[in-house]
Structures are given as structure tokens and as C-alpha cells.
């Protein structure tokens, strides 16, 4: 369970997040909203990259005061809108860097990395340098990094961005498996409503930094307020 309580973030005079609260209880949950709605800001706040007021709790444990790198050690994983993997490390080393700071024995960590590589289909290329990978493979490495070190919360920021339909669908299937593999509560940010409605059980809708709807995905997407603010723009009527 991820609990966001009264999150507020301002940049100079701009309020990027305005008293946003939500409680995500399902294995895979979504955050949607038009460009600039505050989705990435929400994720950055949960990651500890930005200062904010309010609370972030996981199963009643407050994590909103931990420095960012300690949140990762605690069990927070995330991918980025533009993936952030190191070109001069192998795929395996890109996972090891997280395992370096999480608890566990050598053998256990090796098995953990192996499992993540198998799940993402990267196992045969474990020793390939990340710099040699294409966009989709890089995204897969980003996902694999989210699977290691016993994560508690996993977040994906626009995982389908820049991918073909088919690749985005494969990635969607993979994300659905994240809670099964790791037991982590998963948050997916996207403006692709198709993806969100396919994989997310509960969804938060943001617009101009405000929560405009929250609840079961189908119900939320049927909400007239959401349609007006968001779906109308995207011309989606499913």
C-alpha cells in the first residue's frame, strides 16, 4: 500500500503539485494526466529528488524524510522518462550497482540478478555493454534494474514512450508481472490511456497539479470530469 498525503510542490511561483492525496492498494496502479500535469513531479517527490510538504507512506512506514539514495536502499525503484543506464557498464553491472547497496549474500544477489535478466529476456546478453543496446533493450535494462534487491515500490515513468506499439505491449506485459516477481507495489505513469486501462487496477488522474479523480481505473476513465480535462484532448472514447 502506497499512501500519498497532501503532497505539495512549488517551483518558484508555480505550484506543480497541489495537495495531492491518494492511497494505492492494488499490485499495479496508474497515474495519468496531460503533459505538464505533474506526473513526473509526483514520481520525483516519491523518489526523494524534490523537496515537498506532506507525507509518503508505505504500509504505514514514513519514507518521505529519507534522502533519495536511502530510499533506493530501502526498496524504492524507478525508471525514467529518458532511461538512465550507464553506457560504460555491462547490462549485469547496471543491475549490480543496485545490488551493491542492498542487503543479502553473494549467491543470493547473483540469483536475484539472474532472475531479473531472465524475466526481461536479457540473460543471453548479460555481459554486453549498455552502450551497444537499442532503445527497447535499454528500456528493458531499466526495468530489470527495478526487479533486483527486493523492491517494495516500483515506479515507471512513461515506460512506453518512444517504443513501437508491439514493444510497448511487451513492456506492458512485463510490468504486469513485476508484482508477481518482486511483491512490490507498482506505479505506472503514462498519458497512453490504452496502456493504463490495460494494466492498472487503480488510477490517479492529475491535471494542473491537482487530483481530479482517483479510484478504479474503469470508473475513473468514465468520470465526466476526467473526460473533459483529459480524454477530450486525447480524443479517446473507449
Amino acid at each position, binding site marked *: 500500500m502506497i499512501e500519498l498525503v497532501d503532497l505539495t510542490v512549488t517551483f518558484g511561483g508555480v505550484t506543480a503539485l497541489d495537495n495531492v492525496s491518494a492511497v494505492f492498494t492494488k499490485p499495479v496502479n496508474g497515474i495519468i494526466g496531460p503533459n505538464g500535469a505533474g506526473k513526473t513531479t509526483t514520481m520525483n517527490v516519491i523518489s526523494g529528488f524534490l523537496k515537498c510538504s506532506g507525507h509518503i507512506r508505505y504500509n504505514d512506514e514514513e519514507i518521505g524524510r529519507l534522502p533519495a539514495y536511502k530510499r533506493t536502499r530501502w526498496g524504492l525503484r524507478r525508471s525514467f522518462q529518458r532511461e538512465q543506464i*550507464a553506457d560504460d557498464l555491462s547490462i549485469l553491472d547496471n543491475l549490480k550497482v543496485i545490488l*551493491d547497496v542492498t542487503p543479502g549474500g553473494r549467491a543470493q544477489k547473483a540469483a536475484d540478478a539472474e532472475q531479473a535478466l531472465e524475466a526481461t529476456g536479457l540473460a543471453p546478453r548479460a555481459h554486453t555493454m549498455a552502450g551497444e543496446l537499442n532503445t527497447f533493450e535499454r528500456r528493458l535494462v531499466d526495468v530489470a534494474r527495478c526487479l533486483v534487491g527486493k523492491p517494495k515500490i516500483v515506479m515507471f515513468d512513461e515506460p512506453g514512450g518512444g517504443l513501437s506499439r508491439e514493444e510497448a505491449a511487451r513492456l506492458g506485459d512485463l510490468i504486469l508481472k513485476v508484482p508477481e516477481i518482486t511483491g512490490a507495489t507498482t506505479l505506472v505513469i503514462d498519458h497512453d490511456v490504452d496502456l493504463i486501462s490495460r494494466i492498472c487496477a487503480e488510477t490517479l488522474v492529475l491535471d494542473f497539479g491537482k487530483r481530479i479523480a482517483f479510484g478504479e481505473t474503469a470508473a475513473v476513465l468514465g468520470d465526466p470530469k476526467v473526460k473533459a480535462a483529459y480524454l477530450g484532448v486525447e480524443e479517446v472514447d473507449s
Partner: protein
Amino acid sequence: MLAITRSGLAGTVFFLIALLALPALADGQWIKIFISTGCFVIAASGVAFMYSRLGMVSLGQVALMGVGGWVTLRMNHAFNLPFEINVAVAGAVTLVFGWLLALPALRMRGLYLALITLMAAGGLEVIFSTFRFPNGGPGFWGVMPSVAAPFRRPWIAQSDTAYLRYIMAAAFFGFVLIELHRRMAPGRAWAMIRRSEAAALASGVNVVYYKAWAFGLSGFLAGVAGGLLAGGLGLLDAATFRASESIMLFALSVVGGARFWLGAVIAGVLYRVMPALFSNWGINSDLTLVIFGAALLHAIMTAPDGLSGQILQAFGKVTRRA
């Protein structure tokens, strides 16, 4: 983890050939030049790895060599300890000294480290030229006019030729030390820091801690290099450690190519051997500055991995794992 890369193999072969050939081929004056070249190679390896692995620019490396040299001379004339202990202390003191200077900058992003190390180099330049280097005189600063007390070299390397081999071995172990770091947790953390601060944080990397580690390793290498340089002549001159020399060594590390061991070797050779060659040939050694400037432009514009990248590529030695 102990697998040897092709670049590593080439380096080991190069080291063994140099170990056998260089002292045999060179005469008295050149032995001395190669000794100091070796010391600057060690220092260059420090700035080079910081730049290539973390994107950190340090413009104070030669000044930190001066700190290591000062400590080594101070220890040599104050106590009767073996050379290795003096140099080890010099490395440790320089490491801590570097940390104290750089910690505020390591907390910040961007060019602060470059600025603060350059300012430190300027400050040290003034201190070195005011107080000079210990030569066996009385008191804390230990300076006496004209003569110098004897300097104890390592007992296995009393002669100049043996000392040159000693320096080459030290440089080799310096490269091995850096390579071991690269393959373990610090190297992985450094790669994430270079990617971006966000990438590092999302990987659980304590950015300040690992930047400090890198700067400490580089400072240690500078301190050891300075101590070894002191052993070359038995005394040091403030002019060796001017701030401009630190800038020069950084620039030449970029020219040489910061990613590879060969880059640091080229940097050391350009820094120390080239001016000596020029003055042997009766050419004004300021001309080297013009050549270095051109080489730097060349490196920045066309050769991101520097001369070493181009050379290793030409030999087909560059793999992505080099």
C-alpha cells in the same frame, strides 16, 4: 573480476618491455627525465580516471604532488623511517588534504570542483614558493640555504637505474589499483554518477561519498607521485608545482585520452619528455605549449578518447571493455 582485458594485456606487455629496455637504453640525464616522467604518469592517471569515469575536473593535481613531495621530504629529514613509509604517509596526508579542500565542492554539481582545485593550486603555489621544500634545515619548514642533507631512497633502488624501475613498478601498480576500483562497487557507482545524479540516486549511490572516494584515490596517487619525485633528485623546487602546471597536466591527460592507461603515459611523456627533447635539439621549449594547445584542440574536436584511443584503435586493440 580478475580477467585481463586486451588493453590490460597491452599495458602489462608495455610495462615489462619498458622495465627491461628503458633503463638499459637511456643514459644518465635521460634516466632522470624518465624518473620524473614516471611520477607525472602516476599523477596523470589520477586526474584522467576522475575525468573519464566521473566527469570530474581537477585542476590541482600537480599542486597535490607538491604536498606529497613536501611531506616525504619532511619525513625523510625528521625521522629515520624507510622510504616506503614516508611515501605512504605522503599519500595518506595528501588524500586527507585533498578531501578537506574539495569536500565543499564535491557537494555541488558542475564546475565547482575545477574552480576550487585551481584556487587551491594557486594557494599552494604561494606557500611552496614562500616556504620552499625541506632539505634538512631546522624547524618545521626545515629549509637551510644552499646545501641539502642526504635523501634515503628505497634500499632496493639506490641507483638511478634501479630507481627508474621502481617508479615504473609504482606506476604499474597505480594503474592496477584504478582498474580494480573500476571493476568493483566504486567503479559501478562512478559510472552511474557520470550518467547523471538522478541515475546514481535511483541506484542507491551516495553521490558525495563516492565522489569523495574518487577524489581521495586521485589525491593519494598525487601524493605518492610527489613523494617518488622527491626521491628522484633528493630535493624539490617550488617552480615544479606552479598552478599552471596542474592545468597543463589536466589538459595533457585529455590529449592523451583519459579512458586508457596509455593516455596517462602519453600525458607524462608529453609533459616531461617533449620539453627535454626540444631543449636537447636547441628549440625553444615554449614551443611545446603551442603544440600542446593544438593537440588539445585536436583531441576536443576529433578524438574524444584522445591519442591513446586513436592509437589503440589503430592497433585494433579497442574493445568496449577496454
